[in-house]
């Protein structure tokens, strides 16, 4: 059909177009302005709230971070070009009062079609090659390290089993959701689920892996030596039931020597028989506390200052682990009770505390908190 202008045949339609076209042109500029303002706002948002992952802390995370920056740069480039073309067309080609004749009726252009098929093909091929290389590094499992940990996920808790160097024996089990790893040494992590699908996710690792029942996923990582002493937040990333959002954990990186000392101490502690569940001394205050549906039944407790007392803690959540820990106003832990699975009960002897306001919290579920007032 070619690029020949075609005269509009309807006079009345021309007339109505002439009357409203000025207004439409203004609307066109308004819309273009709005789009530009919206884009500027998006950029402001992007600047104010980082559109980049958190600072990576493992070798794998550095790899992924590098790939993200590469892919993101291409994405921004493509967005700016295509959005630029759209905005240009919107600003430039609003219908003018003089536009009574039809614009050139261009039906297409085969050369252009080939160009915008081939160029994106090259771009995605490059992106694929880079991400494929990166994937091979991220997913590499050398299986030569002696630091072997198994994360065990269940509704709604994490525990960590420290395995022997051959991976056959469990040396000790950490019931609290705190994983301790040596910085600078490769860690081999395997994942096991006791019920539904969960996902092990540490944002600063830029990594997650599903914890699938009936299947043991493994991966390896090395925390940067410079991050020894740091603690990283982690949580379940796959919907696993009602209290999915409470399934938090932390990863603590120690210097290798500190890790070895820590591990030896933990193994030694696990060998000893667990301390008998204490009971309250006569005449001593015993506070009652209950955990049900991953919540404490009380938001506040009160105790006398400078006197020992005890907390009788009832865990009503079947096969869910809880405990009671007490933190002072600076966040320092002053007491940590034994973690145990429900349904069961323990009586924790609490040492004398100075007057003040404390927080009691479940070490397994950090969102279970309350206030302990000592006076």
């Amino acid at each position: 059909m070619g690029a020949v202008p075609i005269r509009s045949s309807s006079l009345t339609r021309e007339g109505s177009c002439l009357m409203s076209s000025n207004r439409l042109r203004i609307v066109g500029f308004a819309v273009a302005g709005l789009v530009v303002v919206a884009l500027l706002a998006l950029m402001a948002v992007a600047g104010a709230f980082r559109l980049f992952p958190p600072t990576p802390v493992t070798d794998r995370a550095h790899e992924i971070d590098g790939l993200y920056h590469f892919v993101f740069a291409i994405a921004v480039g493509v967005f700016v070009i295509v959005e630029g073309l759209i905005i240009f067309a919107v600003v430039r080609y609003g219908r003018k009062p003089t536009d009574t004749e039809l614009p050139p009726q261009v039906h297409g252009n085969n050369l252009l079609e080939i160009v915008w098929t081939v160029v994106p093909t090259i771009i995605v091929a490059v992106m694929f090659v880079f991400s494929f290389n990166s994937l091979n590094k991220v997913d590499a499992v050398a299986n030569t390290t002696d630091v072997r940990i198994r994360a065990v996920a269940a509704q709604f808790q994490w525990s960590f089993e420290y395995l022997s160097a051959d991976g056959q024996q469990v040396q000790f089990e950490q019931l609290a959701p705190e994983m301790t790893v040596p910085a600078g040494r490769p860690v081999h992590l395997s994942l096991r689920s006791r019920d539904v699908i969960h996902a092990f996710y540490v944002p600063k690792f830029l990594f997650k892996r599903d914890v699938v029942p009936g299947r043991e996923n493994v991966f390896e990582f090395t925390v940067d030596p410079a991050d020894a002493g740091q603690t990283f937040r982690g949580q379940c990333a796959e919907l696993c039931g009602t209290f999915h959002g409470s399934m938090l954990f932390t990863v603590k990186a120690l210097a290798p020597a500190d890790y070895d000392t820590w591990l030896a101490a933990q193994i030694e502690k696990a060998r000893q028989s667990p301390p008998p569940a204490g009971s309250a001394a006569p005449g001593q205050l015993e506070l009652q506390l209950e955990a049900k549906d991953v919540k404490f039944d009380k938001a506040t407790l009160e105790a006398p200052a400078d006197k020992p007392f005890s907390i009788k803690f009832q865990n009503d959540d079947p096969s869910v682990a809880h405990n009671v820990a007490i933190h002072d106003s600076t966040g320092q832990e002053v007491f940590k009770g034994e973690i145990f699975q429900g349904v069961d009960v323990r009586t924790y002897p609490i040492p004398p505390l100075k007057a003040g306001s404390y927080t009691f919290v479940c070490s397994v579920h950090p969102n279970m908190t309350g206030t302990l007032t000592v006076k």
Partner: protein
Amino acid sequence: MATTALTPAATGTRSSLYEWLTTTDHKKIGILYLVNSFLMFFIAGALALMVRVELAAPGIQFLKEDVYNQAFTIHASVMIFLFIIPILAGFGNYIVPLMIGAPDMAFPRINALSFWMLPLAAILILTGFLTGGAAAAGWTSYAPLSEAKYSGTGQDLWIVGVILIGTSSILGAINFLVTIFKMRAPGMTMFRMPIMAWTVLVTSTLVLLATPVLTSALIMLFIDRNYGGHFFDPASGGNAVLWQNVFWFYSHPAVYIMVLPAMGMISEVLPVFSRKPLFGYKAFVFATAGIGALGFSVWAHHMFTTGAVYLPFFSFMTFLIAIPTGVKMFNWTATLYRGQLTFATPLLFALGFLTMFLIGGINGAISAAVPVDFALHDTYWVVAHLHYVLFGGSVFGVFAGLYYWYPKMFGRKLNETVGKIHFVLMFIGFNLTFFPMHALGLAGMPRRIANYAPDAGWNDLNLLATIGGFTIAAGMVAFLWNIFVTMRSGEPAGDDPWEGNTLEWATSSPPPPYNFDHLPEIRSERPVFDARHKLSGGGH
């Protein structure tokens, strides 16, 4: 143009309620689809606002965790299965027979049956709230969480509801395919069909091939839950990842089911308001077919972190699907180029679609890079991505189509001023809600959590997203107001208010039963344009 109706036998004594309940007219069924879908849109939207209110601040303030999980599960299920998919089927129902010059769909009674399954399914899924808790395992209902051990009766109601919707889709797809292949008017060759008809054709093929797979998966899950089956629960010898494979084998093509007809609607709106033909018609047809075909080979990109799929293959196919999508993007932009743009509300929504879908498409390509997906999967980043595709894309497309075809359906034009207010509120609200979610996800906020720590650094962005959610709601109030004022005193539209290109503009508004008593000559994909401009001997 055509105004004389062929009078159907014995309509005089029927009440109009009886007429609507028993109609087999594709236009009335189309309107029933639209009304039902919008009702579902507002229910699911209210659930989304409840989720946003809970997330506005850390801690649990408004919804307890169990209700929260029901709210986001039913929000997504209703939006996907009872709003987007049916409303696009509704537009297809109303518009496609008109566009190809047919008097009705091929099987009018099956058409009515397809529709009436939907309100029934909606009732089943929503009554979960009254029976001790609606489905709460997410719209993806991953086993074993969706098994009887972990989920209650609401899950069974959800399964039966979704099976009904799937059956409705399959019947609708057969109907569309037969209509398009067998009932085109003389001269309406395949390559003269409007792109909208092509997208419905490809969508129907996807529905026909993919939906039975979902239906079997749902039946297997139902057997697991109620009759001691062992398909998906590893505790009894099943395979948890199997559910994800069969579910996504349907649900990834379903993403294209949810967006292709919206692309078709945009492809009708952009040429009309640019006064130019669609740039690269055939490239567009091939790109649509290409997306449909590739759509079946990318399902496992939802499963990169399971450790149970062959990553390079699915990564490569996912990158590939960006190419036909890119071709469409460039063709739409080239349609605007050197046109004469009239910024009426349908075009505004179409431009909104282009911009938002561009972002949704690009961040889809970002997460096709598997290691990057390891960081982003199941975080708010993915929530942002899917809403840029399905809300920024499909829903903006739906509103473009609604403002465009409303005059044809009801004989009156929606108010332009209120329409523009609606667009501006929705555009700003949408970006306020969903853009910050990219940053939230990168910062490590997982999806589907009711609660987050106050010191996680997510407070401001979540509050911003909630404010955005209410801005969208304000936009919806403007939309409802627009419908209200238009019903009372809308400007009469006439047969062809926009100088349209396709056959629906060659009949009266609304069209009579059986649509046409006279058709213009069909010599190109724009028969009404040809007739208006006396091209190729068209006209009368």
